[in-house]
């Protein structure tokens, strides 16, 4: 019976330690801000995702065409819009530039 | 490309309408199911019903010959009505006096004549609150 109580007490103490750990490890941190994305980073992530999505769609179209799921005429018809979308995504990324270059851009472009 | 309004909403609306139509058609043709009642509510009822109750002995007869005869009582035990049941067809293994069963059938001349093979017994409770003896 007492063994059980001792173990239970240990468990409770362990729980408290586990919960307090981040505060014990860093009593005075430089920044306690949650590493959330700000507007520009978020925008860039979305553009990266748009680019990947457009490229993946192109790849799938190629695959479907090569395996014969999509006929030649359908392929020709669908290729144009997808290519344009991918180009748009790549352009948007380039225009936006790397995060370090953000400072030079005008305020208006930031979200 | 030229079309502005997307056909998606129309497609979904038509599909939902079709499904509802099928559903309503079925229920109007095939009708609803069977009412599920307890033995005390059986008196005077006509048509096929589902009777849910507690089996009372003595259990006599042969379900694969002339029929198994037993009594059925309300599970709650408040009412005193016992309905005589005549059952033919498969008898589940768990069937015995004191078990809860469900059986479909029709009241005929004071006896509940069951649809062959329609008996279902309930598994002995494993999720019920604990009881004293544990023997079911």
């Amino acid at each position: 019976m007492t063994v059980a109580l001792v173990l239970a007490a240990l468990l409770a103490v362990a729980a408290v330690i586990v919960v307090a750990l981040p505060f014990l490890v860093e009593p005075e941190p430089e920044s306690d801000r949650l590493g959330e994305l700000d507007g520009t980073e978020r925008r860039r992530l979305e553009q990266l995702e748009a680019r990947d999505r457009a490229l993946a769609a192109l790849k799938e179209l190629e695959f479907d065409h090569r395996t014969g799921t999509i006929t030649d005429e359908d392929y020709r018809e669908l290729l144009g819009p997808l290519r344009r979308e991918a180009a748009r995504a790549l352009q948007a990324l380039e225009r936006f530039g790397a995060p370090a270059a953000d400072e030079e851009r005008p305020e208006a472009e930031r979200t | 490309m030229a079309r502005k309004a997307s056909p998606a909403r129309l497609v979904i609306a038509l599909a939902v309408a079709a499904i509802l139509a099928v559903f309503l058609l079925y229920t109007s043709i095939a009708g609803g199911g069977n009412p599920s009642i307890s033995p005390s509510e059986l008196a005077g009822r006509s048509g096929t019903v589902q009777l849910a109750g507690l089996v009372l002995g003595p259990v006599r007869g042969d379900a694969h010959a002339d029929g198994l005869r037993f009594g059925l009582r309300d599970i709650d035990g408040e009412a005193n009505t016992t309905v005589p049941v005549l059952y033919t067809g498969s008898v589940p293994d768990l069937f015995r006096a004191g078990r809860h069963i469900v059986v479909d059938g029709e009241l005929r001349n004071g006896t509940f004549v069951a649809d062959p093979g329609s008996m279902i017994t309930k598994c002995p409770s494993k999720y019920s609150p604990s009881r004293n003896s544990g023997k079911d």
Partner: protein
Amino acid sequence: MPELGHAALLVTFGLTAYALVAGVAAARLGRRRLAASARNALVGAFGSTLVASAVLLAALLRNDFSFTYVARTTSEALPTAYTISAFWGGQEGSLLLWLLVLTGFGAAAVLLNRRWARDLIVWVVPVFAAVAVFFSFLLVAVASPFATQQAPPDGAGMTPSLQNPYMLAHPPLLYLGYVGLTVPFAFAMAALLSGRLDERWLIATRRWTLLAWAALGIGQLLGAHWAYVEVGWGGYYAWDPVENAALMPWLAATAFLHSVMIQEKRGMLRVWNLLLVLLAFSLALFGTFLTRSGVVNSIHSFTQSSIGPWFLAFIAVTVFVSLALVFRRLPELRSPTKLESPISREAAFLYNNLLLLALCLTILWGVVYPLLSEAVRGEAVVLGRSYYDFFLRIFGLPLLLLMGIGPLIAWRRASLSSLLTTFRLPTIVALAAGAVLLALGAGSSVPGLVAYTFSAFVATTIAMEFVRGTRARKALGAASWPSAFGSLISRNRRRYGGYVVHAAIVLLAVGVAGSSAFDSVKDARLERGESMTVAGYTLTYRSLEERQVSNATEIRALLEVRRGDRELGTLKAGKNAYTIEDQLSNEVGIRSDLLTGEDLFVIAEQIGADGVVDFRVFVKPLVNLIWIAGAVFLLGSAITLWPDAREQRRLVARTQEIGLPATR
């Protein structure tokens, strides 16, 4: 030791409550350390639940009958394997298993995703914690597995019908499925709460959803097999409410798995997906509620317990809060793209979703109808088998056909001419198969014939995809046909794994159609030496034997089986009489034909004292395809679930490109 168990559950309750409150605070205030603390609490909750589970398991294994739960569900004589299964055999233990799996999945989900879905994780923690708070509250205050009593000399024992290997696998698998659906739900809620409404939450939870869905599917097939061979009433699915309780979330999850593909590829159906995942999760909770509340008449159902109202309240709160969140974000959930054509892959997936949902809701209606009619008319009306069978056919058969059409249509827009080219071969094969089957007599059941024909169509399309894909890879320079095949699958795991799963569904459809639309059944009362014939088989009842085993008397009738003039061996069917429990169990005799997949299924319904036996014999064509379908399903799920290193690298590279710090 029960004090330790109870204390551990209290710690779990405390930790999850903290994770909920701290998690919400950390997310709203943007505090990093607090968020980490909340996450630790959730992980810690898994630890303390593990301790509680260990205590219960230890008590079971050492037959400690001072634990009320142990005394109620086991006995000294019970074999060890079944003693372990008693963990989830009763109310309180099964809730503890739920909580264990829940906290385990929660810990894994937040730890595995913390690198690249941080903005979601910070909200996932409190949502998960909220569900865990509910279950730990039930375990602490309403249904504790650690109640104690004066230890009786022996326990009550386990019902013989539960003492079989299925009890070891079927419930845990279903729990993996039910609980697993919490992960996509939590991420969906996190997406709504954090405002990250794009495809991020879908990608993070894709494998979890697949895992839960596969577990639910396999769990149900195991349950069907259990019903077929052990319970032995001649079927594998009775549309019992508790069976439906697992089918409904599975159907909703199937719809979800398909519609997420649309959102990933085209950014459409955002609101739809959120609502679907909410439905799947709510149905999982509802299913858990149905199996233990005694609310509906069921062969599995148990007496009224106090758990029921709590569950209902929790489901109501969950649905209400989730819908409110969706409504709040509705303006931001507008899709950037639209459906372009009613003949496209998106549209096919949409039809698939509508059919699956229709079937799911029809089943739900059938399950709650007795409750509703009782509330409205004062009388519970039960819908029978014919109701379910009708809608299974109406919605299931078009769904089957769609399975063959969807993968072969282009995204966005497919021209009619391309449809004609693509579907020419499958249509020809299907019509030819239909004609042949008609000639063989399959016209006796129109739905059965239609199912066969559609299955032929789908099977052809699947074969076509594999052949064409392999050919394309070979043309790209693969070394040999096998390596082309292998690289095709490994580079397109989702697609071809999905095709394998579709193949499993085709096998399932054929097996179900054969064994339900084209089966034969016959009853006969036989004396020793007499015979009966069913569908070409002749069975002769030879003798009756009795044998004592450890806890039962085995009574078996021996039959000789012949087909035409070919001897097919013998078959035994009978009953077991369990001495201690004073119960009989049905032991059916099954002879499976390896070539045709047909089963000869014999039930010794009643054994008279004079050795006269009432037999019921079924001949079930193609029924073994159902079990084979299970194995194929497992294979297909494994292929789609297999971790893809390339995909992982791409995801990590993306986060690095934006300059997000790698850890924390």
